[in-house]
């Protein structure tokens, strides 16, 4: 019998799929959404930053959120097909130990891959007006990457929360894997990270 904290593991298949899905989604959104409502990590430092920062950030975060939603839907569906004695416990264990950290890291690494060219070529491509703020911008990049992770996780938890709410009527059970409090906590962390990064960025690029 294992004693102690349950081990957190990664699901490689889920990680690869969600990371690339976020990248593909971001690319599609950048083609569809007008540039004033969407930012790329590169455009943060361009001479013409987005005029509507809040909407642009929301547009950018749409891809990881949608991918989280879809991943949550698929995982919930797959788990529902498991012929287990306690399907509920299986889902709760997998969500806590495996899927949540995997989806969070997928969002984080998708943002990291998106920002990587700019990080490497900062000295060459940065806007000369903000080139001397290299260290500060790298910290902001990191905060945005965390925000990406949280918003992807928010998508995953939202689907499972909604799924549970819809089934609560039919199941009549009161055990919840994702509580409203948990959902609010992740949402607040996402808002906090993206809010801090956006406000600081707005202040220093004015």
């Amino acid at each position, binding site marked *: 019998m294992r004693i102690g904290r349950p081990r957190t593991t990664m699901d490689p298949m889920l990680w690869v799929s969600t990371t690339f*899905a976020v*990248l593909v989604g971001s690319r*599609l959104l950048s*083609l569809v959404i007008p540039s004033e409502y969407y930012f790329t990590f590169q455009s943060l430092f361009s001479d013409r930053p987005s005029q509507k920062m809040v909407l642009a950030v929301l547009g950018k975060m749409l891809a990881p959120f949608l991918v989280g939603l879809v991943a949550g839907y698929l995982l919930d569906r797959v788990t529902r097909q498991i012929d287990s004695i306690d399907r509920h416990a299986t889902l709760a264990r997998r969500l806590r130990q495996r899927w949540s950290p995997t989806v969070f890291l997928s969002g984080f690494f998708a943002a990291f891959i998106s920002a990587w060219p700019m990080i490497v070529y900062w000295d060459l491509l*940065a806007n000369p*007006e903000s080139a001397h703020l290299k260290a500060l911008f790298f910290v902001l990049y990191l905060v945005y990457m965390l925000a990406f992770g949280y918003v992807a996780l928010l998508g995953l938890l939202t689907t499972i929360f909604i799924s549970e709410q819809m089934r609560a009527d039919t199941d009549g059970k009161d055990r919840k894997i994702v509580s409203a409090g948990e959902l609010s906590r992740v949402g607040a962390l996402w808002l906090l990270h993206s809010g801090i990064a956006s406000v600081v960025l707005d202040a220093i690029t004015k």
Partner: protein
Amino acid sequence: MSAVRRTGAWIWRLARSSVAGLWVSGPEPPLVSPRLVGALVVWPLLLFAFFVLPEVRYLNAPPLFAAAGQSPVKAEQAAAGQQVRQLAVLAVPMEGQATQDDGDPAQSDYRIQIRNRVGTNILAAAGYLSAAYYVLDQAGNPPSSYYALRPDGKAVDCASPYKLVPEDLVTDHAVNAALAIVAVEKFNRNAVHRLAEITYAKLFRAAFGKFPDLSFGPAQIRLSLVRKMAAERPEWKKVAAWASMSDDRLLDMLRDECDALKIVTVFVLQHFARADESNVVGDIQTVAAAYVGQRRRTSALIDYAPIVETMVGMMEMPAPDAQSPPPDKQVPPPLVVPEPPRSDSAPAGGSPAQ
């Protein structure tokens, strides 16, 4: 069997078993599941496919979601009773003649912006600027902008070879070209790279008795090129004297940033004087391409010769304070030009070659 062959065979067996482990499912589960391998192939291909899709470019596209009153197209300009709305026109180049900028002012502006930015960063990193300005002209649609750079006086003094060539030949254009060329070379070969080159050259000479024909110093010039320049213009006596200098003396000159700048200016002046029918006097791209031995022109966004030309153009832009900007032209305060530590032991002014 020799040790090398045994090691080679072991590496080969290891690589073969590792690759086989990806695919072959024996009694043991495979190292990486085939589903994961499939995902690692399919997802990147899907991602690349979306990058192959060209972005839709429009001419005369009014800003999306702009309020009717803010639209640059004034319906009230039309005759009474008429309603005029500008339509977005797709920018499609002639078949087989597509270039990056064809009929797309926004794309052309983007290329200029990127080159300006790269050039400014390189010159600032080299320490060759005393001031830099970004000018935004919002009168046009789309708004246009440009950078105006002021070269540092010490660097200009260093790059002006008044005592090497007839004074009337020395122009600001040539000096600016030399500054741009050396700045790019310094950016690509930092002080550590250059120290490694010199160390290698000294070791090479210790082993073989002569320096290798490599490019050295901030300007990355070969000893053979300096001698070739000396032979080309015997009437420039001080330049011609380079031919008889020892390798050590020439190497010292190349390592000295001030001397290196002068040598590059002499190179540029020689090329300006050599312009033929296919070349235009003062064409920076041709000189820059000749300097690095680049034979083929490319249309890459960030390429050596266009960047050097852009840098020279920015240094020759009139400073915003020298002209009276129109009211809709925003001239922000000068950009921050950090003072980088001089990576070379070159003195700030004067030249031992004089």
